[in-house]
C-alpha cells in the first residue's frame, strides 16, 4: 500500500503546530512537526481513528421549552456522528428533565453515554412556556 502524506493543524493547545503525518492504510509511519507528545497522540489518533464529541438537541414533552440539549460523555468515532445523531433525534423525553440525566447508554457500543445538559421544568403558563411552538 502506498504511503500518503497528511497535513493537519494540532488543536490540543493554542500553538497550533502544523503536523505532517505519513500514513499507509491505517498505519502511521511517521509524525513530524509536533512540539510535544500530546501533538503526536492527537495527530496519530486524528489520522487513524478520529473522535469527536457530539452536542445536539432532544425533544421534550410538556416542558417549559420544546427541546433540551444533550452531549456525549466522551468523544466518539467521527464516522459514527451521523448515526448517533439520528438515534438521538428519535428520542423524546418527558419533562421534568434534569442535567446529567441519562438519555442513551453506551450509544452504538462506543462506551460513551448521551446525557442531558440542560434541565427543563414541567410546563408553566408564562411566556417562558415556549411550548406554543411545539
Amino acid at each position: 500500500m502506498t504511503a500518503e502524506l497528511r497535513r493537519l493543524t494540532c488543536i490540543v493547545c493554542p500553538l497550533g503546530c502544523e503536523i505532517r503525518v505519513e500514513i499507509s492504510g491505517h498505519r502511521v509511519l511517521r509524525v513530524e512537526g509536533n512540539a510535544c507528545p500530546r501533538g503526536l497522540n492527537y495527530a496519530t489518533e486524528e489520522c487513524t481513528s478520529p473522535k469527536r464529541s457530539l452536542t445536539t438537541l432532544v425533544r421534550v414533552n410538556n416542558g417549559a421549552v420544546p427541546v433540551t440539549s444533550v452531549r456525549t460523555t466522551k468523544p466518539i468515532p467521527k464516522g459514527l456522528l451521523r448515526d448517533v445523531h439520528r438515534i438521538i433525534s428519535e428520542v423524546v423525553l418527558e419533562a421534568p428533565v434534569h442535567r446529567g440525566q441519562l438519555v442513551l447508554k453506551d450509544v452504538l457500543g462506543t462506551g460513551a453515554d448521551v446525557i442531558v445538559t440542560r434541565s427543563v421544568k414541567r410546563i408553566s403558563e408564562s411566556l417562558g412556556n415556549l411550548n406554543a411552538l411545539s
Partner: protein
Amino acid sequence: MSIRVSVVGAGVIGAAVARELSKYEDIEVHVVEREADVGWGVSKANTGIIHAGYDDDPEMYPLRAGLCRMGNELWRGIVAQLHIPALWCGSLVLAFDEQERRTLEELRERGVRNKVKGLKILDRGLCLELEPNLSDEILEGMWAPTAGVISPYEAVVALAENAVENGARLHLETTVKSICVKEGRVTGLETDNGFLRSDFVVNASGLFGDLLSKTAGVDDFSIRPRKGEYFLFDKDVSPKVDVTLFRVPKPTTKGVVVTQTADGNLLVGPNARDLSGHERDATNTTRDGLDEVWREATKMVSSLPPRHSAIRTFAGLRPEPDGGDFIIRTYDEPFGLLNCVGMRSPGLTSAPAVALKVVDMLRGLGVPLTLKAHWKASREPIVKFRELSTAEKDNLISSNPSYGKVVCSCELVTEAEVIEAIRRGAGTLDSIKFRTRAGMGRCQGSFCVPKLLALLCRETGKPVEEITLKGSGSELVKGRVGRELT
C-alpha cells in the same frame, strides 16, 4: 341603497380616502391591498416630512402646491385625533452659495404665494441658534416653522384602523389584477380573491398606478419609480439635529434631508435615482446610493454619528408621474374611475387634502353624500409603555401584568403592547414592529424576534413554520430540528 366605493391600495392615500369616505352615510368602502398589511408600499419608506408648502410652483404643479399646504394644516388635527407620533420641529433650507441664496428667496416668495405662514430668511448666526449642528459652510437658511415630521407607517395604520372602525372594509393580501369596465362604466375589481363589484374605484395603487389605470383603458400617463436611500440611527445617538434640514432643492428632488424622526431617531436621506418601469419593487439599498446620501449629508451638518453606527439602511421608491404633478381626476369614460396617483413628494403631506378632493370629485359625479350622525373621529392608540411615568407604568402593570413583561428591551416594548397589536390585526413580525416599535432599536430584533415569534404562535394559533416577516413567502423558520445530517 348604498354605493360601493373600492379603493385600491392601503397606503396613506388609500387609507386617508377610506377614512374620509367612512364619514358618509350609505357609502360602502372597501380597501383592497396586495401586501399583508397597510402602508407597506411607498408609505412606509420615506422621510415622513409634513412639508410647509413652499416647494411647489402653483403654475407648474397646481395640485402639489394646493394640496400640500392644506394637507399640512389638516395633519395637525389628524395626528391629535388619531394619536400619530408627530414632531413639529420646523425646517431649514440651507444655502451654500450666492445662487442658492437667490433660490431661497424664490422659495420664500413661492411659499407666500402658496399661503405658507411664517417663512423667514435667516442669516448664518440665526440658523446656528436654531440648529447648532449646522455646517460652517452655510450662508443662509430659510426657516419654515410650520414644517414637521410624522411617523408615516403609524399614520397609515391609524388612518386605516379609524376607517375600519367607522365601517370601511379592508382586504389584505389581495392583488387587484384589473379594473373592470363595461359600457364605459366601472363595474368592479378583478382580484386574485375574486371579483369585487364596485360603483366607483379610487386608484391609489402607488407605484402601479399607471399599470392599473391602463386596465381600465386610461393610459395617458406613466409612473416610474425614483429610489431614495436612507440611514437610520438610534435615538441615543449623538449628534442629532433639532430642526429638519434641507438643501436648496433641485428640479427632481428636494435632496438629502437630515432630520429627527417623530420617534426621536436620526434619519439621513434620501438621494434620488430614477429606475425603469420594470423595477417597481427595487427597494434594495446600494453602495453607491448610500455613499451619495452620506456625501450630501456631511455637507449640511458639522458632524454626524459614525456612518457604520447606523442601525438600519433602507430604500423607498417614489411614484414619479411623467407630468410631474399629482394625477387626481375623474373621466367621462370610464365613468366611475378616480385616479389618485403619482403621489410623489409632497404626497404624504397632501394625503388628507387629497382625501377631501376625492370626496368632492365623487360629489361631482353625482354621489349623494350625507354625513353620518355618529362618526368616531378619534382612535385609541396602543399604549406606549416607554412614554409613561413610573407611577403610570406601575398602575398599568397592576391592571395587566403583561405590561410588566418586557419583550423588546431596546425600545421598552411590553408583551401587552405586542398582544394588543396582534389583536388589532398584526399577523407578521413587521406588522408588530410598525405598531409597537419592537425590533426597531439598536439590536434590530436580535433579542426580541424569538419572543415575538412565540407570541404570534400563541395568540394566532398558527404553527411556527407559518409565521412570516412580511407575508406569504417570508416565513421565518423552515421547520423543526431533528433531521438527518447532510
